[in-house]
């Protein structure tokens, strides 16, 4: 009995959809999010607040870029890689994008297999997701090293507007931190799934509460969000 809600003891009337359902869900003193457990509602609200943080970063980047009279460095050139003597624009960033999308794909399937109680597949997919995430962070470290060696600093760079460096390090750094934290939590939860914590009812180390397979979906929502933010960074920072 994981959900001893009062309404569950009787056959609940079918819920309305559309606008009427929207009004009914929000009205009166009750749980507003009928389709989501509290855990899911909370991760969504956390992600919403994180959205605002990233929005503010991207917005300040837009503001400094539009208002500076100094030419902005061309990202297409700055982030190009020379492979076999041929300069390819934005190659590393493209690879990073594909890696993060792939990790999102494996994560979505991990959630699906989690609800099917397929522990081995879920664990494998989560570990694959974590591996993709770790390689993403590794490439980001490579990119940072390359730019720092080329003289990019938060207060200046050889190609133009000084704000380029501060925007770059802040935005990609904050995103990279999110990816790193995600990798750590993926490993923790993959271990729990593998050990069968959600079936044996083993209590969590910090929370002392029993976990559920829903945590895989919560983890998935966070991970997809990290991918989502990258979509915006890729478009607005690298392709502008």
């Amino acid at each position, binding site marked *: *009995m*994981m*959900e001893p809600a009062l309404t*569950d003891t009787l056959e*609940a009337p079918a*819920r309305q*959809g*559309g*606008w009427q*359902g*929207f009004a009914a*869900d929000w009205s009166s003193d009750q749980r507003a*999010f*009928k*389709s*989501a457990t509290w855990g899911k*509602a909370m991760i*969504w*609200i956390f*992600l*919403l607040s994180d*959205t*605002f943080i990233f*929005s503010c970063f991207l*917005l300040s980047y*837009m*503001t400094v870029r*539009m*208002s500076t*009279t*100094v*030419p902005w460095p061309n990202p*297409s050139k700055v982030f190009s890689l020379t492979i076999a003597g041929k300069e390819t624009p*934005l190659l590393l960033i*493209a690879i990073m994008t*594909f890696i993060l*999308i792939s990790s*999102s*794909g494996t*994560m*979505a*399937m991990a*959630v*699906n297999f*989690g*609800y*099917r109680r397929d522990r081995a597949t879920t664990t494998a997919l989560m570990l694959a997701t974590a591996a993709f995430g770790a390689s993403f962070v590794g490439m980001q470290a490579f990119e940072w090293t390359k730019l720092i060696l080329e003289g990019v600093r938060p207060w200046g760079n*050889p*190609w*133009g507007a000084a704000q380029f460096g501060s925007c770059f390090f802040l935005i990609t750094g904050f995103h990279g931190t999110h990816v790193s934290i995600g990798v750590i939590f993926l490993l923790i939860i993959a271990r729990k799934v593998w050990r069968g914590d959600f079936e044996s009812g083993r209590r969590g180390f910090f929370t002392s509460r029993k976990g559920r397979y*829903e945590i895989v*979906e919560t983890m998935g*929502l966070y991970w*997809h969000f990290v991918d*989502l933010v990258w*979509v*915006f960074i890729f*478009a*607005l920072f690298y*392709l502008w």
Partner: protein
Amino acid sequence: MTQLSAVHGKNMAHKEGQQHPIKLYLVIWGWLFVLSTCSYLVDFFGIHGYLRWFLILLFMIVKAGLIVAIFMHMAWERLALMYAILAPPGAVLLFVAIMAFESDYTHFTRVLFFGTGKASAEVATLAPKPSGSGIGTATATAPPDQLKKEAKKDGLDVAKPEVASEGRNIALPGSAAATGKAGKAAPVSGNAAGVAAVQNDIAAAAKAPESKFYTLKPGDTLWKIAEAEYGSGHGGKYHLIFEANKALLSDPGKLFPGQVLRIPPLSG
């Protein structure tokens, strides 16, 4: 739990999480790859202007939509949650609009400020809006080649008359051997078809010996030139160069290879 699910049927489906066929995720995954490739190709093929913006934003929105709707299962949530999560970021768009307006204005005042002096008002009216909303500028001036030909005919050494045929005004940079010849270049250009005004900035070599000249190469920025000409750490003095070439440059960010800039001496 299983018995309850049996009783409640569809109502309980959400409590046990969403079950969709794996194929759905694979298809979305494939689409995300295709869309990412598309947005990468926009850069690879060097598409510019409004088309670039349109394509980049389009691919971005579609990708974000697929991730949120399918991977994050938002498409199957009730409207109560959808609106609670998706509506607030809409406020960000308003914020974007406000800040775009604001930074446009900031840029405008900066250009105005860096270009203090008698010509600043002129710059204010001539300079196209930085973000590209240059609606008011009339196009169709005399073809630069024609101007060049006219100048050649008179034996004038006008380096690059094509550089600043912005609007209906022509700016003449470059150097002439003597003031007399420089003075001739203006009427020559003015006689060409479609020219409303001529801004004569030709520096006669005899008149201003202290100024240097610099021909723009690809990849140059005013900052880099200032660093090179005034010494390392003086990049911030780029506005002196901008000021000295206001007639030629509408915007410190708009430089074209081949333009000849006057580099004023660093005083004080």
